């Protein structure tokens, strides 16, 4: 184990920011206490005593991103079109993720990093992911929305992290999880340490065992889903702040008469427009049916297809839901059926 002294933090951030794009949890001004991961600016202290409002998924799946640009041109009466794919990304370091944020990356990797040949994976995700280093702050406290202890390893989950920093008096005990992380904490900002890492928090736990099989079994129980989602506004807060909700839309925007871009941007299965077809037919026309799909996807379909639960218990959907809907109550309700 290594040790990072509190007073060495700023120097470390300076060092990291030299070679990489460094993102830290940042308090946003005039934003009702919002904390988000933002590119680090010298002089700003990372916010490490509060949870971020948005997850870190935008580092891998930006809210909108260009897939490619295109240009129509006319030469000698012949129309032609050029397609220019988006270029390379650079090294990125995420400092101040939580174990649930880092685990979420691992969970998304299962789909987006599938090897070419077996499935398609995602080219732009893959490039960003390979260039990403995650420095996680271990949780010694939690709030009433946290429920990561529902999942194997809970707050001690290391997957997705390159470095684990355990808060202790005067700084952090640093553990290298990957080779990349080991190299990083081998640097001069860190010193050797014999201190034991502190006890991690235990959050509330929801019994998720058996949901993969149970959810398809109770699919047809629409009364349950209607009751469970009666207060849902289908506003998308949960999906947009969720670290593992990855649904996206693809659309074109023209930048001039002849030039444009094809973009992809966040979308959500909780929206009516998401699955509505041009004919007007919608396989999931009600909030109950859409929320059922969201829960099914997270706790049954994704586990069946990718071997990972599409939830890490970060609690963002609970903290922010304007209607006070608690996913844990729904899951418990499913178990009790």
């Amino acid at each position, binding site marked *: 184990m290594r040790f990072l002294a509190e007073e060495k933090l700023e120097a470390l951030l300076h060092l990291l920011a030299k070679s990489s794009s460094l993102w830290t949890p940042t308090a946003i001004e005039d934003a009702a206490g919002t904390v988000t991961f933002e590119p680090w600016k010298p002089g700003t202290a990372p916010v490490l005593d509060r949870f971020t409002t948005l997850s870190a998924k935008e580092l891998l799946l930006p809210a909108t991103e260009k897939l490619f640009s295109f240009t129509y041109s006319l030469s000698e009466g012949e129309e032609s079109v050029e397609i220019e794919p988006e270029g390379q990304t650079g090294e990125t370091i995420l400092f101040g993720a939580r174990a649930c944020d880092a685990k979420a990356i691992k969970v998304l990797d299962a789909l987006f990093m599938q090897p070419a040949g077996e499935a398609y994976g995602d080219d732009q995700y893959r490039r960003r992911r390979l260039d990403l280093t995650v420095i996680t702050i271990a949780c010694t406290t939690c709030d009433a929305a946290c429920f990561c202890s529902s999942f194997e390893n809970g707050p001690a989950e290391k997957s997705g992290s390159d470095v684990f920093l355990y808060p202790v008096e005067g700084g952090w005990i640093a553990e290298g999880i990957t080779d990349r992380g080991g190299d990083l904490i081998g640097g001069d900002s860190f010193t050797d340490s014999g201190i034991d890492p502190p006890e991690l928090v235990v959050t509330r736990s929801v019994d998720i065992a058996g949901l993969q099989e149970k959810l398809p079994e109770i699919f047809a129980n629409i009364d349950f889903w209607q009751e469970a989602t009666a207060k849902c506004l289908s506003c998308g807060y949960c999906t947009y702040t969720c670290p593992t909700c990855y649904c996206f839309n693809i659309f074109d925007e023209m930048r001039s008469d002849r030039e444009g871009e094809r973009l992809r941007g966040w979308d959500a299965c909780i929206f009516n427009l998401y699955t509505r077809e041009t004919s007007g037919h919608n396989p999931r026309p009600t909030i109950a049916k859409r929320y059922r799909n969201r829960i099914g996807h997270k706790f049954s379909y994704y586990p069946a297809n990718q071997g990972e639960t599409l939830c890490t218990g970060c609690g963002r959907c609970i903290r922010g839901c*304007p*209607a006070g809907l608690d996913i844990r109550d729904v899951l418990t309700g499913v178990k009790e059926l």
Partner: protein
Amino acid sequence: MTDIIEAMDRILKDTDFVLGWTLDEDTGVAEPARFHSSEQAAQAVLDSTCVHNLAVHLPRLKESTVGIVAKGCDARSIVQLIVEGAVERERVKVIGVTCAAGMLDVKAIWRRHGYGARIDDTGDSLSVGGDRVDRNEYLMGKCRDCGAAAPVIHDELIEMSGPGRDSAPTSSGGSNDTTPDGTLALKQRFDAMPAAGRRAFWREQFSRCIRCYACREACPMCFCRDVCTMQTTDPHWAGGDTNARESEMVQLVRVNHLAGRCTGCGECERACPVGIPLMLLLGEQNNIIEEMFDYRAGTDLEAKSPLLTFDIKNDSWGGG
């Protein structure tokens, strides 16, 4: 809680269910619920954490006859929905609640003290997580200069009993600039900004917009929802990029579509994941509408929104 339980019981006789609040055991605050029976009604609560504007559900429940518990501000939304024909008066039974001391900004409390921190509002004092705090600091922004404590529409009328009844909300004229969400301080700074500064301020704010449309979905008056002009592909009014320019377009169009219709409930701001102070914009617009047309949305069942009825030949701009 006997008032609300009895009122709900009576209303249940004429309705399919009642929209109200029950206690969330985990956090000790009110959460929205549907009440179908007297048994369920016994679980109804009414306190200073009943922040949600339940009127947002009404346009989606056209198939049912619905009872609804409505604070003074929520009642304004119901009135405006009826005025605009989005809700039929005959199909909604309102348990009006005269709000005495305003609602607590639960979101702000928890963003500062941690989600689920125990809120004890005795009426005389507020404590969060066992620590006594200044109650006035944690009032919802809209409650600071509330002019709608008494519901303008109701089939039953009850008074908020219990926590907070005897303490009066402070007015926005005070020197209090330490609210956790900085609402007051922000308003004062914003008012002092020159036009160019305001533009820059909003550009900065809208640069955070992730285009989730939670503001729209949480708004009782944004009942166009899935046919919202900001998401139609034909015509393609607004681009899908999450940049300040496109998001500004989307947000300003939404605000403009609410001119003379917004009842100031603040649900858009409460729902916004990235904390954009939308009520600063809507509140300003509401003031302008009131100055120009002497009109406050949702205060009169017989009145028509000036911008929905403006006749270019015969009407003149109010205030010259």
